[in-house]
């Protein structure tokens, strides 16, 4: 359980980091709570680590014009305990509180987690429900991409060689929208077997706004469009939630492993989605 050798750089500016990443054997270190275990198991053997921890511009939470920008090196703990987020994007703050354990949250970062693209990570459920975007910067420029496009498959993203994920963008939560996150976790790792994030607006007893996203179910976290469509404009009651939640794993190639069969996961997806809808409706 000892990593193979590598070189290490801890640049203090983004441009320096981008330059170092020109070496294609280099890998970004952004907290390391997923990468360092992989190094120790020698599942990853990069030639160089470029540690983003000393770039001050990457650790911030700021709001302007209805968009909250979160620097990639912002820790889960900072997200969880941010007053700005508690006020303006509570779903993200409460989701962060579910990740791993205190020590992991003190060290792990939102950029690192999103770029690692673990199919059972907690963040993507909330971020997809929030229609989050990620900012990707390279030596030749920058682009802002919807998270849905950024996530390609398990542990695979559309991040290109030489690019660094620098920010995550989420909207300030709309007035009248309540949120919830429900998970059932794999007891050893604490990762989600299924996690369901919900944003729900109800007006005159009917669903006026709904976003549902799930993690852990398939090889990639996803927006449950079928659930949203079934609810949109209809009644916000238990029957409707149950009927809509039944679509939670529709058209998804559901994962099966030693911790949960595909049938169990699919069933949990529906149950947790329904419960998250109920939680949100109850807290509105």
């Amino acid at each position, binding site marked *: 359980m000892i*990593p193979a050798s590598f070189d290490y750089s801890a640049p203090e500016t983004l441009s320096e980091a981008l330059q170092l990443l020109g070496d294609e054997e280099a890998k970004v270190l952004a907290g390391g709570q997923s990468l360092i275990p992989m190094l120790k198991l020698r599942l990853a053997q990069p030639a160089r680590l470029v540690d983003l921890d000393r770039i001050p511009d990457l650790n911030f939470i700021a709001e302007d014009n209805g968009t909250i920008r979160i620097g990639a090196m912002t820790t889960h703990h900072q997200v969880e305990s941010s007053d700005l987020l508690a006020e303006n994007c509570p779903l993200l703050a409460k989701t962060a509180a579910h990740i791993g354990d*205190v020590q992991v949250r003190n060290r792990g970062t939102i950029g690192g987690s999103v770029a690692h693209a673990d199919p059972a990570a907690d963040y993507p459920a909330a971020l997809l429900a929030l229609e989050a975007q990620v900012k990707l910067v390279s030596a030749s420029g920058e682009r802002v991409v919807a998270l849905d496009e950024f996530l390609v498959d398990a542990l695979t993203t559309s991040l290109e060689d030489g690019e660094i994920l620098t920010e995550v963008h989420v909207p300030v939560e709309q007035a009248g929208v309540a949120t919830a996150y429900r998970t059932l976790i794999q007891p050893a790792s604490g990762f989600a077997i299924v996690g369901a994030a919900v944003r729900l607006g109800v007006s005159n007893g009917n669903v006026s706004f709904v976003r549902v996203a799930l993690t852990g179910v398939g090889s990639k976290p996803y927006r449950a469009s079928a659930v949203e469509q079934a609810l949109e404009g209809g009644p916000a009651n238990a029957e409707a939630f149950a009927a809509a939640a039944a679509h939670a794993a529709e058209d998804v190639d559901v994962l099966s492993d030693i911790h949960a069969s595909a049938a169990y996961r699919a069933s949990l997806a529906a149950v947790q989605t329904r419960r998250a809808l109920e939680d949100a409706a109850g807290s509105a």
Partner: protein
Amino acid sequence: MDISVTVNGERFERPVEPRRLLVHFLREDLGLTGTHIGCETTVCGACTVMLEGRSVKSCTVLAVQADGKEITTIEGMASNGELHAVQEAFWNEHGLQCGFCTPGMIMSVDQLLNDNPSPTKDEIRHGIEGNLCRCTGYQHIVNAVEAAAKAKAGV
């Protein structure tokens, strides 16, 4: 690489390989063996130390990442021969048996009480979920955390 780290108030300068884990740096290079290694996969928490005032698992931090930073280990908890309130509470409440998880557990409890000075039993159980204990069934640890919280509050 040469790194400079302040551990328990004392500054140390040492050369390290980039791959050297912080826990090995503390235990072997500095001789601070109170921090233990239990699982190597960021689960058990036996290696928990404070890095810049926040608890981290030192088996999942590179020593080079700690360059220029401040660390507190279990050896730095007692001061002037006086046990820290959390240490005293673990002793009084029998919050340990084999003791192997204990240093990391104490560091996590310190973090917990810094963040939440009067946690409920449920909050305690969640606050220490990053630390495994195979001996106690956690019940006396929960008691110890409650006792430490009271002691710190001067109750």
